């Protein structure tokens, strides 16, 4: 719009003339009370008063309810400051305005382990008094205790938080994580959630995914400390609204990491692909995971494998889009399996010329393994990796805190013909029941071939294994059908995860 200079000037003057009468009103918001005294409102603690003066030091004390643990003071309004926000007893320095502060507490809701080595606290957040706060700040803490000083400390932590709030006539809510990190945790990748939509009338929910890793230095420090190490994850978040929350609760649950491996325990096996009972001059490399007398498979979640399915199971239904939350790569996934956590991995297959590749004890030599000249009928002769297209996952929620994941694998030898169902096959359903946070449960059902070896883990807990060395099964057991059932009779239904 093109306006002449006089018109612009006139408009400016009109605005100023309009605002000038409001100046006293704006000033009234920050001016001292008419009697010259300041007011301090203290929720959940002592120190309340209405005759303080600017700069006065007011002792404040949190009144921690039985069964709760003091978390911190937070300031609701005013420009004063707390001398020690993380201590239950401290001082509040009055500013130039009335102030409002509150003590917050956390309640230990339950203990349950994310794996065999530790414990996670589920926290129930306190209920602030009705109609008090426009801005709330809270911190959640999770402590993972190392069960024994002999065990290695955690190198990874995962968790998921769901916060549920009821707001009175709220039309605007902001929710974001202010910071995360305990003294031992670094590099957390925390979801900031700038806004979210109401789930129902006056009910708002937000879910947070977080994960973190300990640095090698931190692990080394913890190992040297000699004490029972603890890893503390602190999650601080702030809620802002244009109205007052009347209650809020939060629950922190561990995310379960599922791992399913298949592996050939032997150092090498005769080539079933070129079928050489007649001459038999080739072997395939195994995963070399057996020991003892008689020889038995050795179990290792992170060991060499033919196939591996690994994924993270989120403990809350509809963490992402299905809540009406904004799409966010961290908050996925409505189906309960964190999308970017999937790993459908197939180990490489290597074929060797038998007589030139095995040592006196029948194991592959280092020279054979290191050979890079293929197709020469000497040492290593071929290598290939099968497609992972035969590996599928299908999660189904059975309730808000109960999820079933069906895992199907049918992967053949990429150097051998696929006939008679001679692929590595399993078809199983893993159910994780988070309904009772203090008693997490799992079920495992399905069937699998007699060969090779199979191992299933939830976190670090091995919940299933099949050893073909113990059952006397070999390559012939790759053929259809899937001869082994896993069910109630094998004690894998509704088992404690502890």
């Amino acid at each position, binding site marked *: 719009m093109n306006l002449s200079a006089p018109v612009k000037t006139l408009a400016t003057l009109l605005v100023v003339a309009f605002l000038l009468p409001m100046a006293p009103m704006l000033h009234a918001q920050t001016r001292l009370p008419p009697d010259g005294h300041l007011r301090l409102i203290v929720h959940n603690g002592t120190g309340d008063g209405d005759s303080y003066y600017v700069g006065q030091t007011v002792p404040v004390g949190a009144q921690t309810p039985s069964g709760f643990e003091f978390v911190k003071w937070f300031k609701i309004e005013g420009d004063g400051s707390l001398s020690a926000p993380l201590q239950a007893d401290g001082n509040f320095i009055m500013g130039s305005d009335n102030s409002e502060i509150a003590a917050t507490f956390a309640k230990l809701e339950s203990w349950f382990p994310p794996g065999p080595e530790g414990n996670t606290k589920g926290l129930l957040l306190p209920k602030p008094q009705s109609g008090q706060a426009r801005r709330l700040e809270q911190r959640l803490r999770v402590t993972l205790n190392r069960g024994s000083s002999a065990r290695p400390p955690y190198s990874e932590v995962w968790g998921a938080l769901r916060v549920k709030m009821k707001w009175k006539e709220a039309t605007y809510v902001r929710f974001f994580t202010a910071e995360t990190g305990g003294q031992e945790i670094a590099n957390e990748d925390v979801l900031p959630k700038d806004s979210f939509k109401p789930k129902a009338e006056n009910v708002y929910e937000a879910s947070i995914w977080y994960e973190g890793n300990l640095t090698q230095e931190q692990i080394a420090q913890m190992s040297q400390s000699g004490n029972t190490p603890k890893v503390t994850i602190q999650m601080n978040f702030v809620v802002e609204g244009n109205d007052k929350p009347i209650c809020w609760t939060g629950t922190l649950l561990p995310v379960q990491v599922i791992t399913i491996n298949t592996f050939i325990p032997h150092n090498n096996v005769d080539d079933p692909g070129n079928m050489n009972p007649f001459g038999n001059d080739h072997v395939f490399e195994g995963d070399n995971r057996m020991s003892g007398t008689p020889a038995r498979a050795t179990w290792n979640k992170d060991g060499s494998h033919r196939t591996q399915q690994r994924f993270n199971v989120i403990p809350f239904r509809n963490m992402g889009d299905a809540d009406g939350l904004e799409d966010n790569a961290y908050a996925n996934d409505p189906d309960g399996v964190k999308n970017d956590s999937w790993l459908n991995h197939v180990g490489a297959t290597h074929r060797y010329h038998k007589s030139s590749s095995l040592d006196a004890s029948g194991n592959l030599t280092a020279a054979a393994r290191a050979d890079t000249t293929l197709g020469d009928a000497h040492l290593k002769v071929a290598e290939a990796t099968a497609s992972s297209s035969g590996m599928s996952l299908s999660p189904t929620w059975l309730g808000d805190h109960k999820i079933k994941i069906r895992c199907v694998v049918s992967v053949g030898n990429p150097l051998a013909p696929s006939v008679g169902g001679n692929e590595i096959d399993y078809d199983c359903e893993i159910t994780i029941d988070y309904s009772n946070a203090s008693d997490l449960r799992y079920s495992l059902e399905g069937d699998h071939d007699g060969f090779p070896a199979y191992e299933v883990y939830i976190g670090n807990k091995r919940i299933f294994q099949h050893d073909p060395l113990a059952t006397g099964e070999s390559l*012939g057991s790759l053929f259809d059908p899937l001869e082994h059932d896993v069910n109630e009779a094998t004690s894998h239904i509704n088992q404690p995860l502890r």
Partner: protein
Amino acid sequence: MFGQTSAMTLDQITQLDVSERVNFYQMLQPKNLENPADFFPALVAGIEDANVAVRSAAAGKAAHSMLGLQQLEQQGQRMPVSTADLSNLQAALIKLLDDPSPEVSRPAATALIYSDAPNETLGQILSKKLASENDSKARVGLAKDMALAGYSPEIVETTLIASLDDPDRKVRESAAKAIAAVKPDGALPKLASRLGDQEMMRDFLVDAVAAYGSEAAYLLPTLEKMLADPTLAGTLPDRVRTAIAAIKNPQRQAPDPLQIKPVSLVDVSTTLPALPTTAQTPPAPKAITPLQQPKVMDAPTSEAEKKSTPWPWIIGATLLFAVAGGILLKFRRK
């Protein structure tokens, strides 16, 4: 390591206990026998063993052996055993098809399929087994193996397509996987009707649809609608995306170099025993004579597929309309 046992005679094998016999058959190679020529007689003895675990091990070894012989034959290498012995093994395998344990009958069927080129005699025996197989999943597996080996009787294709309606979801899934490999005519409508079957692992259905390439183009809207479903979970969304891409841009599929097309190892017509009679007689399969080139399942895009491609017509029509429109516009301006 795996496969090391001392050389034995046929008599010594019979003196082993059950676990030793199982172990023996799992590791059996000609060199494990004092007389390597006893390889097939030894297998026959295992197949006729009273213990199911021994029969299972022997049947598995027989299946591996037939595949090995086929590879040697097709590589032009000398057969290490006599064909007369092989015919005795075939006769024993035919009996084993009726073994009550699928862990025995299933590898026995595989061994039989790869013991010879597809032919009418074996086709009838296998079709009879297919028709009488009570285990639905085994039935699907047998049909798939027969089709991939070159048997193309109608019963093979109808078995696969009909199995998509099996009450057991695992059978339906096996059928979808088999159809993806075999691509029988007329399966697409049934596959399409199952795309909403949420009880199934639909990954396999989608893979099967994608295997038909541009022939499945009419299902693109259905797949795109599936992809828009926010509740689509697990690996399925990626599979649907892959299928859509495969249908829109079908690639010529090279035949699987590992897939064995069985050829004749022995003339079974004079040595096979008479077929057992059953109450249920399946329709006679289309005969494929020995040494006849079997049906290539993974053939490049077929002529029918090429003819059905609508893109040239669409592009041509678009160009025509563009030219006509341009001319009309010019006339109007004038």
